[in-house]
């Protein structure tokens, strides 16, 4: 190994062991290691890592949050959880939420992204910017907005359906127990479609133009181009969007909180809201922790896929 000293002379240094080299780098670059590695890891450990482990342990305890005493109860919370019909119902609702989200806003977002980048629409970037706006609005505002619109008596939606001669479609959107969950996913669609669209657009804009030109020369129609060129080329983005959508679906909370509070008859209850009720309304913190761990486990499967994508990309970047 050769190195340049500050005087500019080449000197021969002994090849050091990896450990020694590490310590030398640590001493030489200590500010970078301190602020760039140790500090974030400590912050992570204190405010993210410890709380996660602590929640896991709390799921084995009984605690009402007020008394200092926590009682270790083993798997009692978990046993109760798996027998709780509210849990099964919430979990089912989350799964339905994920499926609807993948079909409607994600599928629709893909179609719109393809449509807008096909060059067959004027003002496509303005449309894109406007359609994306709802994704930057809070689900709380959106919930408040749609609560007014979906009101069965003076709501704009039913009124509009009546005006369009579609009166047979009029429903009690938020009061019908069989419908309420789909109404909420519909509201979520209004929020999320633009996000999916813009992510797909990001992917499509990276596809080399030559591929499309070749496809055109080969006589491929628009649907063939979509199926054989665009979709295979944006597969990584499709994976990311799918995974993100499922993760978001499993932590749906805001819309439910603002619009229905899980009702009517718990039919719009979801895991995150169920957890909030048990822990912060009924003060069953151990039980709430168990639900929290459940949400964590369910989303970590998908988080792992997402992270492996980023890790792959990280190698590519560096």
């Amino acid at each position, binding site marked *: 190994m050769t190195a340049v000293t500050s005087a500019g002379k080449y000197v021969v240094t002994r090849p050091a062991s990896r450990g020694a080299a590490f310590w030398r780098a640590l001493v030489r*670059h200590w*500010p*970078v290691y301190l*602020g*760039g*590695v140790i*500090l*974030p*890891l400590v*912050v*992570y450990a*204190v*405010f*993210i890592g410890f*709380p*996660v482990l602590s*929640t896991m342990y*709390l799921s084995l305890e009984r605690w009402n*949050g007020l008394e200092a005493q926590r009682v270790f109860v083993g798997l009692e919370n978990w046993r109760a959880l798996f027998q709780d019909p509210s849990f099964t119902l919430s979990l089912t609702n989350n799964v339905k939420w994920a499926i609807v989200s993948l079909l409607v806003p994600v599928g629709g977002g893909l179609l719109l992204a393809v449509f807008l980048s096909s060059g*067959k*629409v*004027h*003002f496509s970037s303005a449309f894109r910017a*406007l*359609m994306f*706006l709802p994704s930057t*609005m*809070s689900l*709380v*505002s959106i919930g*408040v*907005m749609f609560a*007014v619109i979906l009101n069965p008596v*003076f709501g704009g939606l039913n*009124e509009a359906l009546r005006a369009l001669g579609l009166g047979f479609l009029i429903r009690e959107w938020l009061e019908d127990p069989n419908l309420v969950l789909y109404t909420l996913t519909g509201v979520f669609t*209004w929020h999320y479609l633009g996000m999916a669209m813009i*992510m797909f657009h*990001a*992917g499509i804009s990276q596809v080399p133009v030559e591929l499309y030109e070749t496809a055109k020369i080969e006589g491929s129609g628009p649907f063939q181009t979509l199926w054989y060129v665009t979709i295979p080329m944006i597969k*990584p*983005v499709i994976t*990311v*969007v799918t995974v993100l959508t499922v*993760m978001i679906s499993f*932590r749906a909370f805001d819309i439910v*909180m*603002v619009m229905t509070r899980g009702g009517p008859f718990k039919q719009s209850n979801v895991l*995150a809201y169920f*957890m909030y009720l048990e*822990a912060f309304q009924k003060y069953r*913190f151990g039980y709430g922790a168990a*639900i*929290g*761990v459940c*949400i*964590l486990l369910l989303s970590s499967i998908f988080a792992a896929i997402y*992270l492996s994508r*980023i890790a792959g990309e*990280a*190698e590519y970047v560096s």
Partner: protein
Amino acid sequence: MYLNPSQRHLQIPAAVLRRRRLNAAVKVVGTLIFAIVFIVWAFPVVLTIMTALKSDVEVMRGPLALPSHPTFDAFVGVWSMLNFKQMLWNSMFISVGGTALAIALALLPAYALSRFNIPGGDVIFIVILTGEMIPAQAVIIPLYEELRGLHLLDSLWGLVLVHGVYGLPFVLLVMRGFMASIPKELENAARVDGCSDLGVFRHVILPLVIPAIAVAGTLNIISIWNELFFAMIFLDSQANFPVAVGLTILKQGRYFSSWNLPAAAMLIGQMPTIILYIFAYRYIKQGIFSGAVKG
């Protein structure tokens, strides 16, 4: 086409012209189809603006009719009813403060993990990124206890701290990508001039990643502004509520017999991020890009 006589032979054949005219027609039809999609999409917002400009009596007469006597009464009423001045300030304090902390925490890690050969660097990066994916429900109870211990419950500073920490992973993801793309030569030149690690960071890297700070910062500000769960659990007194929490009060009984008030409240509360969106759309789009394509 403006061609002089000597270039006549370059004139476009009729068949090509016909195809072009057809393509132009297709484009008009495509635009119309999209305009219809867009009108359906904008319908809720238009309706909400109209509702907010009407009196309640007029809303009940017909939600779809244009406001016959537009009035800002609902805006004025809900402004004082919910103490919007305080709420907007609280939201701004939390989102700007939390974002500033997240950026401050993420700058050096992004530098270290993009330009130094740190043993286990990729693992450290992934570990920190998991922070972005952990559901709030899996940390909320112990975090509550920690904030109680730090005397930061029911305090805006507590939320700044929490959002700073939980914003770190995303800011790191964006910044690390940007920093990795800076050519090594720039850094080497500064090193030859005798810059230390931190000197290189301050004089070479930092000025070049200001756009990345804007990208990560705007998205972070918007997402904290819109965040409900942490704010709802960690804040207790109404004087500390940000807009997102304040709007949930609307649903609790006494205001909800009215229609124009919630509509007006929603518009006021979302206006700051909409303005930010208009001016920083470029950065926001780029932030989504780095989340979708690089991620």
